[in-house]
């Protein structure tokens, strides 16, 4: 997802323009995304959709991804069900809480404003 040698032109890594935090509840990972520059919020709303977040994670998220918009704090909240290998307490993953999923999300590429949407990762 991150390592393509020549990034598609007209795109930017989400990590360059946004910050994120991961939380957990049972088998659900809750990912919050905010622009580094508040003026970019509407752009993120357009680019970082629930569908693209689901496509970015692929099989890592077994259930659905739902997005909430919290504009007063420029926040996008992604509630990803089935993302924690059965749940924090019985997961066999190394990162049982999915704390690292916020950074994995920031590995997503989005289109610069005025460009066509980035291709979902294959």
């Amino acid at each position: 997802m991150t390592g393509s040698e020549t990034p598609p032109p007209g795109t930017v890594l989400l990590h360059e323009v946004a910050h994120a935090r991961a939380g957990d509840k049972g088998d659900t990972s809750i990912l919050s995304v905010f622009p580094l520059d508040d003026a970019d919020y509407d752009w993120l709303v357009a680019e970082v959709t629930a569908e693209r977040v689901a496509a970015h994670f692929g099989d890592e998220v077994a259930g659905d991804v739902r997005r909430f918009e919290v504009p007063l704090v420029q926040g996008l909240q992604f509630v990803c069900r089935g993302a924690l290998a059965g749940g924090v307490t019985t997961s066999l993953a190394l990162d049982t809480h999915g704390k690292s999923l916020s950074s994995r999300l920031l590995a997503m590429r989005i289109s610069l404003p005025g460009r066509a949407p980035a291709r979902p990762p294959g």
Partner: protein
Amino acid sequence: MSAPTARIGSGAGFAGDRIGPAVDLATRGELDDLVLECLAERTIALGQQRRRLDPTTGYDSRAEQRFRALLPVTLPRGTRLTSNLGAANPRAAGEIAVRVARELGLACRVAVVEGDDVLDRVDLERPSLEDGRPVSSYGEVVSANAYIGADALMPAMRAGSDVVVAGRVADPSLFLAPLAHRLGWDLDDEAHLDLVAAGTLVGHLLECGAQLTGGYFADPGVKDVPGLDRLGFPYADVAADGTALLGKLDGTGGVLDRRTVREQLLYEISDPGAYLTPDVRLGLYGVTLDATARPDRVRVAGARGRSRPDTLKVSAGYRAGFRAEAGLLYAGPGCVERARLAGETLRRRLAEDGHPAGRIDVIGCPAEGGDAVDVLLRVAVMVGSRDAAEAVCAETESLYTNGPAGGGGVRASTTEVVGIASTTIERDLLTPTTTFLEA
């Protein structure tokens, strides 16, 4: 009892949290209240297991260490200390506070709040909140604790306690109760719902300690945090109208700004329109965060409250089996291929012996081909007995002499796993009690 503002600090955000920053905050912070949040979902189930083996245990294993560090600071200053570190045995933890205070020669009134243990009355045939299966179908249930609210803490607050020790109180409720007491909010008054929401929001923001002040945040070059090694813990000055000014002590490391606060605002919130606690349904869409002229201060307002849920959430702990976890390191050219060969070899051997598949990962692979400097082969399997788990660990260790070239550094461990399934219980089935101990 009403005061213009109350200053409440966060002295622990989880059971393993650092103690030094809490002592600093209590020493220099001129706090009215200090709250230690020390209980994760599973902590209490593990505590119940320890208590079953030894009835004098079951509380947070660092309770004594925390009291020894903090009571010499909080008691002389009149700062009330409230915590859920009682876990599965609040009484025993309260007795430790009394003993520590006596040894220090300090007077101390300790309130012990119990009544969250509902194992004898919860309906295990109810569907779990996780996937709708009955809780009983998950496995042998060994504990069931209800998330009780701020109302259960109010008798302790009103009685002039110096230390309040409880078990499974909902995290934000630990903050709401002291605030409601000091600011004259009535938890049962519909007209006070926005104040209850405001106190809950303050609790939500403070309950993870340094996650508000630059912990869980630093990302060099993008989000730099000065003095991460000296992170300070946060506090809030809360006004009677529910507005709050968040801060951290001058001279501490870290950063508290709109970015750190909004990350924590949405942290673990599965519906920003209705965050359910035992005390209120908290709506976050109207919350505003404003930086002030002074660095490391953020003003918070705009929480909205609707009436509390009719039922309480219950966390039930069940025996989920034994987890075997093991790994070893491969380095240099071809390390990814050698680690994968080791994983496949191990997978076949475990299957041959009838163990469940579990998962085998190679950690540290580069994203698109190329070679890694080194990678970790990791195996994790859930099995039914300690013996089986140890057999999995031994099979992994045997890769030293029976696997690919250059595998080293085997680390293997076996852990009994208590899983958590959640359900609900009617409020009237609980009767929280408060007991006072004196030093």
